[in-house]
């Protein structure tokens, strides 16, 4: 071993040693345009997404009144306790232009990426959470986190590119272990000493990065791009190690939870709700502990297969096969599924509002963007696709409003969200979905 060339690793180790001083915290936080704690420490801004499947029953979902104090038709009656925290957006459109209308795909892809997909396998561009995470996700242990209530790792509305999907956490137990396992640094711990292992890990990355670059030279263009993505991920990992070498700021609402039970697979609506609440509790605690500032919560997939006990059609099948009840004017079983989704949306918003932070709540320092895949799923309609937001993004957004989009692009909400999160983009979306028009009615 005497012939070992130590230069490369020692160079990395030296870099690691310098970094143990830590990044100046103010530099980190000032980029986020946050409001401040009483002592002047800025409170970071957060961006979350939430998704439900298969749209709405328009006649009992869309309020008659717009603006504040809008009425809550029966399908969204569950939102009463959180009405003051949310905005409802209706009569916004998704445009497919020359792309086909891909069932249960075009709607969510446009609202998350701004671009109409050309095939059902196609995921164009990148999703909004990825763009926002690049802006505000650099000061936390995780750039972003995703979780699903379906128990199915394949369900995700977050991707960096066509074949690079952010797979969600699907098991409460596994999610817990990832968040609060051995690597977790309690921000409220009284003492802090940098872990020398983290320093070594960071230093050792240099060699792996060089190895990745070397490997890139031996493969074709597409594979080179994939390896380069891997290299970028290693760089990102390096940044996360840096953060772990600095003492985290205290977070008043951060409490390490008890380890949860694991749940069986299945899509019975009660089981999905239970899973949704467990994953929400874990996710939001991770946010409260400042482990991430960008988070995706997935209640149901676009082809939602949630089951209503005793009813022989899962949600998606019911949207197509259940008749519209002529007296009621809607599909009663389909509406049952949507109402269950709204129960969970209310739970999610309320959970955010219950985390105290500064003079307000976690919700006050967040902007949540909630979307679905269709408007009227029976006909695969994407016109008038409903959306919600929640939170005031640090007092910059008015809430409690029902906004009628007048047929304008649904991408306006995503554009508004990105501007709120500090992305200096002049427009967002492709072709008819392009917009440079914020939804001014909600801005303070």
């Amino acid at each position, binding site marked *: 071993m005497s012939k070992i060339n130590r230069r490369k690793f020692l160079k990395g180790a030296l870099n690691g040693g310098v970094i143990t001083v830590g990044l100046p915290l103010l530099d980190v936080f000032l980029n986020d345009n946050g409001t401040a704690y009483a002592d002047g420490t800025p409170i970071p801004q957060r961006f979350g997404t939430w998704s439900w499947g298969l749209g709405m029953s328009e006649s009992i979902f869309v309020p008659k009144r717009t603006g504040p104090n809008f009425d809550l038709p029966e399908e969204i009656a569950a939102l009463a306790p959180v009405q003051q925290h949310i905005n409802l957006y209706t009569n916004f459109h998704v445009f497919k232009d020359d792309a086909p209308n891909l069932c249960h795909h075009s709607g969510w892809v446009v609202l998350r990426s701004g671009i109409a997909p050309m095939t059902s396998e196609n995921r164009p561009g990148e999703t909004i959470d990825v763009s926002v995470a690049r802006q505000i996700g650099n000061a936390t242990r995780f750039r972003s986190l995703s979780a699903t209530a379906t128990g199915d790792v394949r369900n995700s509305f977050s*991707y960096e590119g066509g074949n690079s999907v952010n797979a969600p956490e699907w098991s409460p137990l596994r999610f817990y272990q990832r968040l609060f396992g051995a690597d977790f640094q309690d921000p409220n711990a009284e003492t802090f000493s940098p872990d020398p292992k983290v320093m070594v890990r960071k230093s050792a990355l240099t060699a*792996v990065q060089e190895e*990745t670059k070397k490997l890139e030279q031996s493969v074709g263009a597409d594979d080179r791009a994939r390896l380069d993505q*891997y290299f970028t991920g290693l760089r990102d*990992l390096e940044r996360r190690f840096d953060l772990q070498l600095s003492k985290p700021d205290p977070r008043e609402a951060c409490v390490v939870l008890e380890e949860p039970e694991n749940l069986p697979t299945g899509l*019975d609506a009660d089981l999905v709700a239970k899973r949704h609440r467990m994953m929400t509790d874990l996710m939001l605690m991770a946010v409260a502990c400042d482990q991430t500032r960008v988070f995706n919560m997935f209640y149901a997939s676009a082809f939602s297969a949630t*089951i209503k006990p005793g009813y022989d059609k*899962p949600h998606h099948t019911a949207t197509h096969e259940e008749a519209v009840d002529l007296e009621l004017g809607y599909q009663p079983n389909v509406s049952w599924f949507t109402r269950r989704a709204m129960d969970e949306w209310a739970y999610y918003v309320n959970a955010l509002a219950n985390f105290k932070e500064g003079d307000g709540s976690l919700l006050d320092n967040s902007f949540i963007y909630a979307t679905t895949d269709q408007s009227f799923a029976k006909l695969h309609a994407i016109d008038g696709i409903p959306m919600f937001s929640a939170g005031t993004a640090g007092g910059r957004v008015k809430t409690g409003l029902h906004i009628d989009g007048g047929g304008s692009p649904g991408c306006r909400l995503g554009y508004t969200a990105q501007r709120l999160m500090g992305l200096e983009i002049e427009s967002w979306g492709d072709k008819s979905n392009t917009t440079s028009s914020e939804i001014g009615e909600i801005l303070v």
Partner: protein
Amino acid sequence: MLSIQVEIKTISCTLGAAILLGACAPAEIEQGEPGESASATRTRLLTGEQYTNSIAAVFGDDIANSVLPPIPPMTRTDGLLSSGAAYVGVTSDQISQIQQTATSIAVRVVDEDHRDFLIPCRPEAEDQPDGACAGLFLQASGELLNRQPLGDERLAELVDIANYAAEQTEDFYAGLALALESILISPEFVFIVDEQEADPDRPGYERLTAYSLASRLSFFLWNGPPDAALLAAAESGELLSEAGLAAQVDRMIASSRLTDGMRAFFDDMLGFDEFNSLAKDPNVYPMVTGSTLRDAREQTLRTIIDHVITQDADYRDLFVSRKTFMSPALGVVYGIPTGNGWTTYEFPESSPRIGLLTHISFLAANSHAVRSSPTLRGQALRERFLCQLVPDPPPNVDFSLLEEAEGAVTARERLAVHNTNPSCAGCHLITDPMGLSLENFDGAGRFRETENGAEFDISGELDGVFYTDISGLAAAVRDHPKLPSCLINRLFAYGTGGPVSPRYELATLRWLEGRFEASQYKLTALLRDLALSQAFSAVRTEDSQGKMLPANSESQPFRLADPEFSLPSQR
């Protein structure tokens, strides 16, 4: 009305062409492998199972099973999840998971329960670095994990990491774990990279390097990394000789690890990942629990492995064989008494259970949670076993006719509604006839005589072959010309790490079909032919290969209907 007729005509015409194509297909048995046979080079991410198997091969099952593989789900590409591994990208979030998992593994490898038999030496002092001992361990485990020697420079770096970390932590084993972490997050471990070199025996052509060939062989036949003997054959160059390659392939096929490899292949080909999230409504199917569904998957895999490997029988007979395996949980659903654990079982001649299509796995996985689905079953039969693609559904379907299908008692009556709708009829005529023949089995795969008091009409037709009952359907599948060629297509893709290229590889597949037919459809013979073929070792040069195409575009599976028409794959 006119449009209905036109569509039906188009479909039957296409089907007719397919049958003709299939019928005329192989018979090039006497000819050798096409001279230009070669495959693409690929950079594949380890699949989750390959990751686990790699850890198990080096550090044992208990450590491998103590973590979940940090690998993202693959996109099913031309019928196989494993082909998606050649295209999947690794996001930053995923890399943080790879790192966390690496930490968990490394900590366990060096803990007091494992160090004595996983680390081949003792440090002079546990609270100090010991470069010599660290080097021994890192060199051996690094070679197995990377599937080739580390190289002096990389080994030196790793020993530096171990030494430096041991100094910082005052713990030799902690230092060793941190160096091992570095190996476990390196792209050379998590990606299987095909490396090529000039073929000295065929000037102007390229072949895989010996180590890349070793990896391709072992992930193909074992779904895991090369063992020491295979790596030694690569190192000595023996693997690049005809005799040396044959010796290794024969050894690998004779190994018990072949079962692992083929279980993984058939699990992928049959779409059994569906079982990871499959559940049945307990109100409708109270006897079906999670263990029932796990056993259903296991039953089919055991049946296949026994048939094609242990018995070395004709692959096609899997679709008409009544021999299987039974567990207590399955016995409840099949309605037969069973012993403890897994036992062999043969359905009597009088039983409607015949072949894989009547296994609970196929019937339950291709149903809704609350009811059966002839459409999903028909689609699965077409796509999984015959490599025919049933397109996605059209967006503008008018479902009003389907609403509760007033008065419809059976699925056949409900689905008859589709045939009155031109935009539905095209695809449903492709899937429903054979799916309806399985309606004697409910959404959990239980046998039933009637549905809502009505008896079933289980007669049907598969690509021109008419039949009256389930055994007729089984025979039609067994004798379908696409059945063996589909297996070859999937195996070739599985072995070479990505979808078949119709532009370059059809002649090779045709040659393999002839060989398969001549072997009386023995899987082991096919595996040997494929592993020893020129196409398996030779790779196309960058120029002739051109730019790699995105997922799903390399291969153009036979489409059953106008692409405008299709069916949902979701339930």
